[in-house]
């Protein structure tokens, strides 16, 4: 597997992961803005982004300084655990054993809750509830992306590319959100999460085993087998666990 392909995979994984998390954060920020006023929601959003930048600046160089084998074992192991969590949820959703993520529903319920909350001001923030809602959405959704971007980027020795992929996704979602002033319900989030889960698990599996001392047949080219194999296995599990007593019937666009 050439370096170009690894770098492309880095960009795609971080971009897709960031895309879905940004869409989720946007839904909450929009609800906060519409229900509580845009100023507090905007300040909360900026504070959340600042918090994430501080984490990248603090943690990124520390991770990049770990020796490669140790890095691949530690970070690869974390990525594998993280990827299996994403994949597990994606399989549960696609097989009808967990409700599909529905931005319209999240937006509606957050908006209703935000409209009922009391108003409290603090310093420059006119509405503390709106600020906190937007801050938490950006900080918590973004933390997963930061984790993926920093770990993936460190393994590929290209944190700037990971940061660029994340930035492109955030800017695109931000522009679309500003233009529409509505949650981005057309982004196939459940399918994207499935793909990200497959890629995280596959790369985590490859790097962690290599870091533990294993030598893959074919070297880096083994990834060209591992990625489709993980995808096929996940699809088979969806078919196996597809349940008649489903929480929600998988909609068009969901894997299987």
């Amino acid at each position, binding site marked *: 597997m050439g370096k170009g392909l690894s770098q492309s995979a880095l960009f795609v994984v971080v971009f897709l992961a960031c895309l879905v998390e940004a869409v989720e954060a946007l839904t909450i920020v929009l609800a906060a803005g519409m229900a509580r006023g845009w100023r507090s929601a905007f300040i909360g959003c900026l504070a959340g982004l600042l918090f994430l930048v501080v984490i990248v600046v603090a943690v990124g160089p520390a991770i990049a300084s770990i020796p490669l084998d140790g890095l691949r*074992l530690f970070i690869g*192991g*974390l990525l*594998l*655990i*993280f990827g*299996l*969590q994403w*994949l*597990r*949820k994606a*399989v*549960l959703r696609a*097989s009808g*054993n*967990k409700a599909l993520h529905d931005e319209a529903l999240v937006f509606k319920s957050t908006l209703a809750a935000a409209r009922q909350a009391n108003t409290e001001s603090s310093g420059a923030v006119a509405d503390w509830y709106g600020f906190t809602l937007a801050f938490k959405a950006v900080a918590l959704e973004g*933390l*997963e992306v930061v*984790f993926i971007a920093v770990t993936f980027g460190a393994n590929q020795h290209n944190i700037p590319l990971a940061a660029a992929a994340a930035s492109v996704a955030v800017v695109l979602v931000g522009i679309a959100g500003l233009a529409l002033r509505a949650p981005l319900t057309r982004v196939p989030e459940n399918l994207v999460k499935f793909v990200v889960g497959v890629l995280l*698990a596959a790369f985590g*599996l490859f790097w*962690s*085993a290599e*870091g*533990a*001392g*294993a*030598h*893959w*047949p074919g070297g880096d080219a*083994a990834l060209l087998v591992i990625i489709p194999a993980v995808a096929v*296995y*996940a699809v088979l*599990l969806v078919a*196996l*666990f597809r*349940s008649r*007593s489903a*929480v929600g019937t998988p909609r068009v666009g969901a894997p299987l």
Partner: protein
Amino acid sequence: MISRVGTFCRFWYDFIVGDDWRIATGVVAALGSTAVLARTTTLPVWWVVIVVVLILLPLSVRRAARNSMRQNRNAGNN
């Protein structure tokens, strides 16, 4: 103070380990076994983590699917 530390630890536990601690435990055990085998034998050991993942994922999905079905059934009875 103690409750804040507890909340902080719980957040990171939920963030990294997630809904099923067995996945994290299984991955750590698989990587430990791979490391030991790689240093003590000349056999190829790349398959160890694969086998563990092949077993862990369906077991975890099955457990969650059963819980979900049980909750649906209980909700239907109430």
